[in-house]
């Protein structure tokens, strides 16, 4: 017999207390507060616990829940097919910075008009507790039994070096701040990186909610996000203080704005020309 597993297929698939809930609530509020037309909104994700977010928003949205690590090229294809769509990638640190690292480099290089909201909990959740590219050196797991020996990947610094339109960091525990960062990202044309620090209550006993709370510090008004050197300095600041806020912005034109084929109309709009 085939058991009716569907009865037990509860939603969401997150642990109680997971930082993803805060991110989802912030996202729902941003959609509501900004009166975003969800018919022209596409949520794109790869695989992982964070990558399930597109299935859970309050309001129905368009969803492309693709392959592990491949959210960005899929999002790029969607944006090129119809650049009138708002394309938001919402995925985790393993998906975006590990499996999808090469795509991250090149999506940033293109400055494609995609917003990447990265749930960065510094650990792999869905595969049960292995190190991620952003795990702290020394972080021990069942795989990294002697501790992580590689250096923490610095997504902010890389994105700043590649001169993307918008680079910010926020924390899942501060909903107002997170909402502000999401809303800000939605105002920019090109590639937007929003790295969202998030506790993993099950697999990361080091970078806990308290650990983040004790460290996050909003960048002051004195910071000029168009100052690349200052932005890089903030990107390299990680320790007793972790800066959150809009770290960097750029005027660089988006990838799609430079495509001759997209000057008059979208690709999908020109199909039956």
């Amino acid at each position, binding site marked *: 017999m085939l058991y009716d597993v569907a009865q037990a*297929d509860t939603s969401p698939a997150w642990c109680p207390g997971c930082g993803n809930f805060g991110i989802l609530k912030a996202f729902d509020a941003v959609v509501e507060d900004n009166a975003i037309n969800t018919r022209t909104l596409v949520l794109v994700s790869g695989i992982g616990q964070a990558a399930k977010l597109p299935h859970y928003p309050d309001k129905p949205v368009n969803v492309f829940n693709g392959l592990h690590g491949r959210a960005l090229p*899929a999002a790029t294809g969607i944006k090129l097919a119809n650049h009138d769509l708002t394309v938001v990638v919402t995925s985790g640190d393993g998906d975006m910075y590990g499996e999808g690292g090469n795509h991250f480099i090149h999506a940033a290089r293109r400055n494609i008009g995609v917003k990447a909201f990265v749930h960065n909990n510094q650990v792999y959740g869905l595969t049960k507790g292995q190190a991620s590219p952003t795990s702290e050196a020394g972080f021990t797991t069942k795989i990294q039994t002697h501790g992580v020996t590689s250096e923490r990947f610095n997504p902010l610094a890389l994105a700043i070096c590649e001169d993307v339109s918008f680079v910010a960091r926020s924390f899942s525990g501060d909903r107002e701040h997170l909402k502000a960062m999401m809303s800000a990202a939605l105002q920019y044309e090109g590639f937007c990186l929003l790295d969202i620090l998030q506790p993993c209550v099950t697999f990361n006993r080091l970078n806990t909610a308290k650990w983040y709370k004790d460290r996050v510090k909003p960048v002051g008004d004195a910071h000029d996000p168009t100052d690349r050197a200052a932005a890089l300095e903030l990107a390299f600041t990680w320790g007793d203080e972790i800066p959150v806020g809009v770290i960097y912005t750029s005027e660089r034109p988006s990838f799609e704005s430079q495509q001759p*084929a997209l000057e008059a109309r979208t690709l999908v709009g020109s199909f039956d020309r």
Partner: protein
Amino acid sequence: MDITIRVAGEAGQGVQTTGTLLAGVCGRLGLHVAATKSYMSRIRGGLNWFDVRLGEAPLCAGRDDADVLVALSEAALDVLGGGVRDGGVALYDGDEAPGAATGVNFTQIARDVAESKVMANTVATGAIFAVCGYDVEKLCDYLREQFADKGEDVAEKNVACARAGAERVGALRGALTGPKATGAPPALMTGAEAIGLAAATAGVKLAAAYPMTPGTGTFTTLASLADDYGIVVEQAEDEIAAVNMLCGATYGGVPAMASTSGGGFALMAEGLSLAGIMELPICIVVAQRPGPATGLPTRTGQQDLQFALRAGHGEFARAVYAPGTVAQCGELTRRALQTAHRFQTPALILTDQFLQDFQTNVDEPDRTYRPIDRCLADDAGKGYKRYAVTDSGVSPRAIPGGDAFVVVDSDSHTDAGKISEDLRGHVAQQDKRMRKAEALADEALAPEYYGPDDAERLLVCWGSTYGPCREAVDANNADRRRKPAAMLHFAQVWPLHVAAARDALGGPDEVYCVEGNQTAQFAALLRECGLLDACALISRYDGMPFTARYILEAM
């Protein structure tokens, strides 16, 4: 009658330029042309050759030997000199030619006449014209036309070079009698170009690929057409990105295509599987070259048939086309795109280096934009379910941006596209998707039978071996002492048209499978489908294309 002119030399010496010029002018004059390229994976040095075969009737393959060898390097003479037919001519770019070759110093003549060694290729073409007994003034007219936009000076210098080349062959003038022009269509096209043009006219709006020989020719063609047809062309960071871009773009509502070769296609396998479960109509050109791994990057082969049939984990429906001619490259590209959209599943086009680079006369191609039917559901709105279960397995397809919310997932999903671990729902969706395979089989192209009805020997082939097999059949049947032969060519290798294949395979006593691989991959497929018991294999996996002679000798 037909003759083959082989221009050979180091990469970077102008082999390609000379061959292209010769093929172009001969096509313009109404000769039947078949041009093939043999080259090494390098930018300078080595040994490349470009064959231009000329005839009075359509030609669909190259030949092993040559009537004229134009050697631009000593190595070209050493390696290819033995391939010149008795009574043929070998010209060498130098004053003193080794062996039986005749020295015509194209480079020095170009320097003397035009102060430009680059025009040595025009000198060589003039010399070839003279040797074949063609009027060099016709070449001159063509040159004036070709260089019209570069100014009169350049054009006239080329004309002077062509004339000088013709004069300097001396007693070899008219040594051979070239075929007569018989009004062949003047336009020439390669397989790679035919695929690119067909894709552009059919409505491909995103071309995303990573350069990989021999697939790159199609990508280059799409790039050259991008401004005219409104195509976004993006060189992806890798083939994984390329295939996922196709998935995104087709989800967004536009046809999208990539070209690659075996190694790149290997990287696309997961994305192909994604298109399978998401039911996205992506289209990929897989231009084969010999493997494993990097193998022989610039040579030809048919080793990736079984890979194309199986690539991608899990089970899903696909269509795999294998054009045999340049004309079929165009026709089947349109068909592949249309099929992919009708059945919302990936379609593959299997070619190889030989066919990608094979250049021949084509009827003036229709360049008008005539997009395929994307088969979209116009009325999708509230409550839309992307994967509604239907009898045909094809669900109404909407695209984002309209009234319907379009939810697609690589995870097993509900009929609404929501991630789901419901085992019953999983089976319902898997069954729904696989019902499309049955409909695809009903649409399969019947194999083409060529030859007499009472043939006792049958050459079974697929893809680019069409031309060599067809010529082998003609040559076989021209010899009354040989048992009559026929060819059965499959331009679609999955799904197979089982009834037509069974019918054709039942007659002849001797069945040969002609394949550019070592393990008889197509014969294995026919056996798997219950269409064939035993057959003889005529295989070639040395990187070179089949020729009629190769096949005849093996029969």
